[in-house]
C-alpha cells in the first residue's frame, strides 16, 4: 500500500503535475466562490480538455478543484451570506453574523485554519478506516440513514432556547417544501401545482438556497442600506483579525475535532453525504458548546466545526470508491467517469490495480486544501474590505451573481423565479421571527429522511421493527432519546433558574 503512496507522492513533485494542482486549486476557489456554479460544473467544463493527458495528471487537476472549493464557497458565505456551494450553508449561519459585526477577517481566518485542519484530520481518519471499509459501509443502510437524519432534525428543535416552537414550525415547513416532486419510492408526483416537468425533481437546492440566503439578505440591504458590516467599520483590520481567527481555531480545538469526525462519518453515507454533514456538525457543536446562546450570532466554534466538517467530508466520499470503486458523491461520479474515459475501470479492483491513482486524489486534495487555506489567510484582510463598501455598490454585483447562479444550475429561467420567491418567503419568515436555520435544515433533511424511512419499510415488508432490531439503528435511536431528554432537562433547569432570579 505504501509504495503506491510513494509513487503518487513522487508524481506530485513533478512540476507539470504540481502546476495542474495549482490550476485546479485556483479553479476550485473561483467556482467554489461563485454561487450556483458548482464544482461539479467546473469539473464537467474541464473534462473535454483532459483528453490526451495522463490519468494521474487528470486526477491531480480534478482533486485540485475538489480540495479548494469548500474554502472558496466559505468566502462568499462569510462575506455575503451566499453559500458558494450547497454545503457551505451552515457557514453562513455564524460566519456572516461575524462579518456583520465587523470581524470578517476573523471569520475568514477561522475558516481557513479550520478547513486546513479538517482536511488533515479527515485524511488521517480515512487512512485509519481503510482496512475496515466494507464492514463500516455495510453497517449503514436506510434505517441507519433515517436515524441519522432524525438526530439532525431533533437536535435543531431541542437546542434553540426560547424559539423552540417557531423553530419547529420552520423546520416543518422546510420538510414540506422538500417533499415537492416525484417520489421514486411511491411513484407519485406531489405538490406539482399542475406542472409536469419543472417540479418533477422538486425544489432544487441551489436556486432555493440562493433565494433563502442571498435574495433574502438583498431585500434586507434594500430596506436598511448601509454596509455589510453593521457599524460601517471593521474591528480588525490588518493581520490582527486573521490571527485572532487562527487562535480561535486552536482555542476551540474540540469543535474542530468533532466537526472533522462528523464530517467524515456522514460523508461516508451515500445519498446522505456532504450537504447534510455541515448541518449535523453545526447542531452537534451547539450541543457541546460552552456558549450555545452565541450560535447564530457569530460563534467562533460554530464556524470552526462547520468548516472542519466541510473539508473532512471529502475523505468520506472516497471510501465507497476505495471499497468498491463506486462514487460516494456526484463529484466522485464525474471523477470516475473521467477514469473510464482514460481507460481505467473503476470497480472493486481499482484499489488493487490503480492504488496510486487513488493516492493521487487524496494527496491532490490535501495539497489543494492547504494551498487554498494559505491563500485565504493571506487574502483575508483584503477580502474583508468588502464589508465596508456601501451595499449600494455591492448589491448589483451580488444580485447578478445570484441570478446567474440560480440559472446555471439547470439552465432553466424558472429557477430564477424560484430563487426570488424563496427569497421573499425567507425574508418574511425571518421578519416574523422564524429562524431560517431550521427551515433550511428541514428542507435538506426532509426528503432524505422520508426516502430512508420508506426504503426501510420496503426492506422489512412494512414492519417497523427493522429500526430496532438492527444494532446501529437502535443505538442511534437511543442516542436521540438521550439527547432529547438532556435537552428538555437543560431547558427546565434554565426556566427554574430564571424563576429564582
Amino acid at each position, binding site marked *: 500500500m505504501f509504495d503506491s503512496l510513494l509513487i503518487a507522492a513522487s508524481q506530485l513533485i513533478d512540476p507539470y503535475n504540481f502546476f495542474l494542482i495549482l490550476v485546479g486549486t485556483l479553479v476550485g476557489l473561483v467556482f467554489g466562490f461563485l454561487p450556483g456554479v458548482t464544482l461539479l460544473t467546473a469539473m464537467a467544463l474541464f473534462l473535454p480538455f483532459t483528453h490526451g493527458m495522463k490519468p494521474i495528471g487528470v486526477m491531480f487537476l480534478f482533486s485540485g478543484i475538489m480540495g479548494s472549493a469548500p474554502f472558496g464557497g466559505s468566502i462568499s458565505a462569510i462575506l455575503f451570506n451566499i453559500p458558494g456551494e450547497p454545503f457551505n450553508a451552515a457557514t453562513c449561519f455564524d460566519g456572516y453574523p461575524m462579518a456583520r459585526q465587523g470581524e470578517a477577517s476573523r471569520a475568514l481566518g477561522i475558516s481557513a485554519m479550520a478547513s486546513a485542519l479538517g482536511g488533515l484530520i479527515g485524511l488521517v481518519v480515512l487512512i485509519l478506516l481503510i482496512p475496515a471499509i466494507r464492514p463500516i459501509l455495510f453497517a449503514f*443502510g436506510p434505517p441507519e440513514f433515517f436515524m441519522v437524519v432524525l438526530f439532525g432534525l431533533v437536535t435543531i428543535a431541542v437546542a434553540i432556547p426560547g424559539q423552540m416552537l417557531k423553530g419547529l414550525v420552520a423546520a416543518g415547513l422546510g420538510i414540506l417544501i422538500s417533499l415537492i416532486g416525484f417520489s421514486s419510492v411511491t411513484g407519485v408526483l406531489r405538490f406539482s401545482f399542475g406542472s*409536469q416537468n419543472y417540479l418533477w425533481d422538486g425544489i432544487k437546492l441551489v436556486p432555493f438556497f440562493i433565494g433563502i440566503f442571498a435574495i433574502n439578505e438583498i431585500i434586507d440591504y434594500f430596506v436598511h442600506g448601509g454596509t455589510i458590516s453593521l457599524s460601517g467599520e471593521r474591528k480588525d483590520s490588518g493581520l490582527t483579525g486573521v490571527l485572532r481567527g487562527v487562535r480561535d481555531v486552536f482555542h476551540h480545538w474540540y469543535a474542530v475535532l468533532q466537526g472533522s469526525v462528523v464530517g467524515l462519518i456522514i460523508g461516508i453515507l451515500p445519498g446522505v453525504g456532504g450537504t447534510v454533514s455541515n448541518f449535523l456538525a453545526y447542531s452537534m457543536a451547539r450541543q457541546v458548546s460552552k456558549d450555545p446562546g452565541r450560535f447564530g450570532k457569530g460563534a467562533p466554534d460554530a464556524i470552526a466545526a462547520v468548516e472542519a466538517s466541510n473539508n473532512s467530508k471529502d475523505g468520506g466520499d472516497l471510501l465507497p470508491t476505495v471499497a468498491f470503486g463506486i*462514487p460516494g458523491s456526484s463529484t466522485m461520479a*464525474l471523477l470516475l467517469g473521467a477514469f473510464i474515459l482514460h481507460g481505467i475501470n473503476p470497480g*472493486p479492483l481499482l484499489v488493487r490495480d490503480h492504488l496510486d491513482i487513488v493516492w493521487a486524489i487524496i494527496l491532490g486534495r490535501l495539497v489543494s486544501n492547504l494551498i487554498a487555506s494559505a491563500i485565504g489567510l493571506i487574502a483575508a484582510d483584503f477580502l474583508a474590505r468588502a464589508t465596508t463598501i456601501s451595499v449600494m455598490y455591492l448589491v448589483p454585483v451580488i444580485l447578478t451573481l445570484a441570478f446567474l447562479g440560480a440559472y446555471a444550475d439547470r*439552465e432553466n429561467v424558472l429557477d430564477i423565479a424560484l430563487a426570488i420567491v424563496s427569497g421573499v418567503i425567507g425574508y418574511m419568515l425571518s421578519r416574523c421571527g422564524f429562524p431560517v436555520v431550521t427551515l433550511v435544515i428541514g428542507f435538506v433533511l426532509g426528503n432524505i429522511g422520508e*426516502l430512508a424511512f420508506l426504503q426501510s419499510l420496503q426492506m422489512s415488508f412494512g414492519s417497523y421493527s427493522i429500526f430496532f432490531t438492527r444494532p446501529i439503528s437502535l443505538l442511534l435511536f437511543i442516542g436521540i432519546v438521550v439527547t432529547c431528554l438532556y435537552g428538555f432537562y437543560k431547558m427546565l433547569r434554565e426556566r427554574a433558574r430564571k424563576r429564582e432570579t
Partner: protein
Amino acid sequence: MLAKIILTVIVALFGLSAPPSAQSQYPDKDISWIVPFAAGGGYDVWARALGRAMEKELPKGAKIVVKNVTGAGGRVGTTQLYRAKPDGYTIGMVDLGILPFQIAMGPEKAGYDLNRFSWIGVFAEAPWTIAVKKDSPLKSLKDVKTQGAKLRWGVLGPGETHWLAAMVTTGEMGIPFNIVSGYGGVSEMIPALLRGDFDLCPVLSTSALEYVKSGDLRPIAVLDDERFPAYPEVPSSKEQGFNIFSPFVRLAAAPPGTPPQIIKVLEGLLLKALKDPELRKWADSSGRGYEIVRPKGADAARTTMDEFIKVTQKYQKEMSAALQVSK
C-alpha cells in the same frame, strides 16, 4: 463620398443575402449532443467517447459538444431534444426508460413522442443480468420462482429501465413484484445489494462486469436468448425456461422533422465512429466493448423502438398504476 457609402452598403447587403449553405456543406459548425444524464455516467461517457471519434470525420474545427441536461429521469433532456431545431446541429441520446411515462400520460401531456423522433441509430446494446450478492442462497431463476413472494427487487424507481426489466421478469415468471426503490443511481444500488437492502436486482451486464470480476456480484441469469460473452458460464433466461424480452439499447436521435439527408450523414458518422480503432480500444478496455455487438443504423433503431413499445404496452395497466401521475 456618398457614392462610396452607398456602394459599400449594397455590397454588404449582397453578402448578407447569400443563400444558406446547401445540405452538402453540412456539418460546418459545432454539433450539440444532449445527454439527459449526469456527467460521468454511462451515457455521458459514451457520448464523449463517440463524440471524439465522430469529430475526426467533421471538417476542421467543428466539434461535438456534450451538454448534460439532467432531470426527471432523463425526460428534461429528451424534451429539450424533442423541441430543438431540426437542423442537424442538435442531436442527443434517448433512454427508453422514459417510455412508460409517455404511455401513462399520452404524448400531449408528456411533452414528447418517442414515435416521432428522427432516429439516427442504435450505438450500443446490452442484455440485463439478474444479479445477487456473493453469498446469496439464490442460484438460478428456478430459485427465484420458488422464493417468489419473499424476494425484494432493487430498482431505481417506478417507470425506469431497471424497474421495467424487473417487472417484465416477475410478470413472465408469475411471481409478485416487491421492490425497494428510490436509489439515486446504479452506483447507489449496487452497494445496497451488497449490504443486503434487497435480495436481487437487474443490472446492465456491462455495468456489472467489474463486480462480477471481483466476485462481489454473482449473476444468476442473463435476460437474453444467448449467454453474455464476458461470463459464459451463466445461463441465459431462455435456457432456464423463461421467455423474457426486455432490451436495453442506447439510441441516438435527432429532433422530429430533421431532413433525411442530414440523418443519413449523421448515421454514417455514427457507424463510422463505432468502427474507429481508437474508440474500439477504449471500449474494450472499459468493458463497453461488449455493448458494440451489432451497431445499427436508423432503420434498426426504428424497429427496436416499435418492438419495445409493443412489450411495454403489454404492461400498460401496471405502469399507470405505478406511475400515479395521471390522477
